């Protein structure tokens, strides 16, 4: 349906198309369902679990000693804003699996975070450089409100999949809903297919 008198304010003309239903945002809005956790980098660690077994645990220092991956990309939040040309650095999930000498598993992954947040992602969406543990944004430490010290970063999906304050990935055979997915948000969340909610 058409709103006859609506024309919009298209002052931010995207250099590239943005996904359907999204608008360009200059700032970097903060979205989260609870307070920002207080994370002590000295006791922080990250682990990967496969079939009930922890196959690797990394401290902050050991994460930083691994090969670092840079990503230049656009980001898309389900609350309708997109931001273009952002720069991130972190460690690819591929690198962590290689460090643990594990071949990439099939199936799905549940991400677990400080504060209790969870989200589900198909395993293949984390491989081949598509998913990283990001600790640096625009050449600076990732601010706490944006998920620092470390967040999962999977920019080809809506940002709620890029779980802030990440602590653990659990590989699983069958897909299960995470936090927002259990409240009716889409299990996959492809912004280009506008998969915002269950049924999209």
């Amino acid at each position, binding site marked *: 349906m058409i*709103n006859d008198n*609506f024309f919009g304010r298209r002052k931010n003309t995207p250099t590239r198309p943005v996904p359907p*239903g999204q608008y360009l945002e200059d700032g970097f809005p903060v979205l989260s369902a609870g*307070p920002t956790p207080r994370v002590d980098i000295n006791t922080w660690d990250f682990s990967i679990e496969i079939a009930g077994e922890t196959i690797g645990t990394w401290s902050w220092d050991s994460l930083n000693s691994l090969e670092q991956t840079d990503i230049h990309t656009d980001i898309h939040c389900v609350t309708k804003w997109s931001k273009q040309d952002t720069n991130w650095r972190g460690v690819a999930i591929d690198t962590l699996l290689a460090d643990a000498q594990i071949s990439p598993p099939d199936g799905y992954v549940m991400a677990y975070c400080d504060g209790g947040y969870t989200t589900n992602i198909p395993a293949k969406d984390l491989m081949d450089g598509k998913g990283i543990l990001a600790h640096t944004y625009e050449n600076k430490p990732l601010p706490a409100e944006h998920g620092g010290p470390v967040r999962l970063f999977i920019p080809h999906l809506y940002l709620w999949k890029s779980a802030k304050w990440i602590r653990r990935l659990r590989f699983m055979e069958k897909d299960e809903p995470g936090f927002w997915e259990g409240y009716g948000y889409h299990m996959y969340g492809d912004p280009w297919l506008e998969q915002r909610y269950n049924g999209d």
Partner: protein
Amino acid sequence: MATVTKVRVASDRVKLFTLEVPTGGNFKAGQHYDVRLTAPDGYQAQRSYSLASSPGDTNLIEIAIELIDDGEVSSYFHDSVEPGEMIEVRGPIGGHFTWEPSHTKSSIFVAGGSGIAPIISMLRHRFTVKNNAPALLLFSVRTEDDILYREELERMSDNDPSLHVVTTITRGTSKDWIGNTRRIDQGMIDSALVNTGVKPESAYVCGGSGFVESIADILLDTGLDFNQIHIERFGP
């Protein structure tokens, strides 16, 4: 699809829109609707707005829209939308920032500006179902004109001893104002809790992003657990 049935001016920058939606009252207090506008050339813009009305047997919902500088959707609503207009909506959406009548925990609600919208929905619902778990609302606004739902909040707290409302004005007060006149800080929360005797076991915080961030941090210091604090950020 919704039909606008009423438009009311609530403050300099906020208008209240009543929309008729077939199953409008079927939602949980705190949930939102997505609104989508389509220009004649096909350009579209979407935004989310919390429901301010309370759930119930009705086909009417209310949303409070604050005029945002450069906001293409809010300015359209403020400048052009009149009763009778059809609006494309989708909802209800969201499930974490919700309050239901079965909620028996004492609660602190903290609202900044138009962030009162989902919280007034919760308080209206709470009042209607006569839920009397102790509740404290801390409401921060810039000016007296910005105290949305002022009379209704007074009426509810006058008629419900378990509801306490503390308002603070952060810029410019009239000489008649006897309430707080600063941003919400730890001291204000502590004394409000002491004065009202509310010992919160859950928190609902809604407002601009910076507001929500600082309040949630104070509430952690107050002793609330991470998972007891529900937040909803307004703005982009």
